[in-house]
């Protein structure tokens, strides 16, 4: 690895100032970044360790405010958080799937988002759940960006020099709603998603029809993709098998898979259909079961 510098600021102000320097990169859990720098896949001159900043370590739920998820909160805290498991199970699904226990101790959802892998396991669920990214800028302002607009390409985000993801905000869940995230990997652990699917849906009061649904796909495009048509097709429907099939077909149509060592484009498109239906069934069960 080439020579680098390391700083561990305690405040956001210091952090944004450091991050404005040339070659500066934010370091949270480091489980992606350290490997990328080591293998010359990302350049860095200065690593700004964000784990000492209190605001980035916040994790709290409030029935009115929703969920505030600090960018540096490690996965295990999120996956084990009772409000996440109960109210945002799709996020819990995705976060729990990021790496093994060792990675869970370090990796953060903020890092997972900023790494901007198309296959990131937390992002489709965040998108489906309508999450927004709260960004600190060097001038001290806060920007709010829907997560589906945060990634701009493989490994690229909208963050500019000196800008920093502070936390993610998830709105309070609607009544009769739930969510799910599934991914397909060849093994049972320790793999990158061949396809990931996050869904969130809400039913009407007597739970006979869908009020709204959001579906997002991972690993089938340059960024995680929101597929609005697939979700929209479920609105007003009873979510019978034929409805799920229709949503799956629409999602497949909007997927932009490529062939690589993790799977062919055809196989990925096939999996989108399978996983959309499975994820919807799980979310549906979660609404009905709880």
């Amino acid at each position, binding site marked *: 690895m080439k*020579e680098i510098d*390391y700083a*561990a600021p305690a405040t956001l102000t210091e952090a944004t100032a450091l991050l404005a320097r040339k070659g500066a990169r934010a370091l949270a859990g*480091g*489980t992606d970044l350290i490997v990328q720098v080591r293998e010359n896949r990302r350049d860095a001159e200065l690593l700004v360790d964000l784990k000492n900043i209190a605001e980035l370590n916040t994790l709290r739920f409030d029935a009115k405010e929703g969920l505030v998820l600090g960018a540096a909160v490690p996965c295990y805290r999120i996956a084990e958080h009772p409000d996440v498991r109960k109210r945002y199970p799709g996020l819990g699904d995705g976060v729990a799937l990021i790496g*093994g*226990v*060792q990675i869970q101790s*370090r990796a953060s959802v903020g890092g997972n988002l900023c790494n901007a892998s198309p296959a990131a396991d937390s992002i489709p669920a965040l998108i489906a759940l309508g999450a927004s990214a709260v960004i600190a800028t060097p001038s001290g302002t806060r920007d709010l960006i829907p997560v589906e607009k945060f990634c701009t390409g493989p490994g690229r985000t909208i963050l500019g020099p000196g800008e920093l993801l502070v936390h993610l905000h998830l709105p309070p869940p609607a009544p009769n709603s739930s969510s799910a995230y599934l991914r397909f990997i060849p093994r049972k*652990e320790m793999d990158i998603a061949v396809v990931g699917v996050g869904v969130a849906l809400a039913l009407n009061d007597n739970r006979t029809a869908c009020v709204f649904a959001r579906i997002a796909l991972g690993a089938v495009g340059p960024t995680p993709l929101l597929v609005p048509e697939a979700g929209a097709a479920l609105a007003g429907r009873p979510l019978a098998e034929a409805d799920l099939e229709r949503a799956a077909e629409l999602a497949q149509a909007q997927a932009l898979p490529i062939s690589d060592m993790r799977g062919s484009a055809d196989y990925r498109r096939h999996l989108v259909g399978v996983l959309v239906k499975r994820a919807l069934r799980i979310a549906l069960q979660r609404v009905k079961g709880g």
Partner: protein
Amino acid sequence: MPKKIHVQAVINGQPMDFLCEPRQSLLEVLRDELRLTGSKEGCNNGNCGACNVLLDGRLVNSCLVFGAEVQGKAVTTIEGIATAQGLHPLQQKFLEHAALQCGICTPGFIVAAKALLEKNPKPSEEQVRHWLAGNLCRCTGYDKIIRAVLDAARLGS
């Protein structure tokens, strides 16, 4: 020569000071600076678990932590598992069950299993397998490792 930074940490219960370059991983610091070579490098990218240590009690891959990041923290390595009173039950059970062949992954497995039993003293086989999925062993097929951990858990009760 590259710039070094001064880090204070508690290593296996012992307060220690060390100097490291910012680019040096905790694994490199342990092995090359502190001569604690029990933590092994198998992949250097977080996929094999051979370098597992406990960082403030949580299981991590020391190849994915910078030495600089452990300032003020406590690190437990394989060298800190046995005591003057003898082997840890996991170490004893690994021996009794022949849960190692070449032994290169063994330190990582023992550290990981220790973290498991501290969190969940009575894990099921499935829970042991899930917890240890981040540790690769190429010799044993895992069978005897899983049995050793389950047996150590029984012993712990």
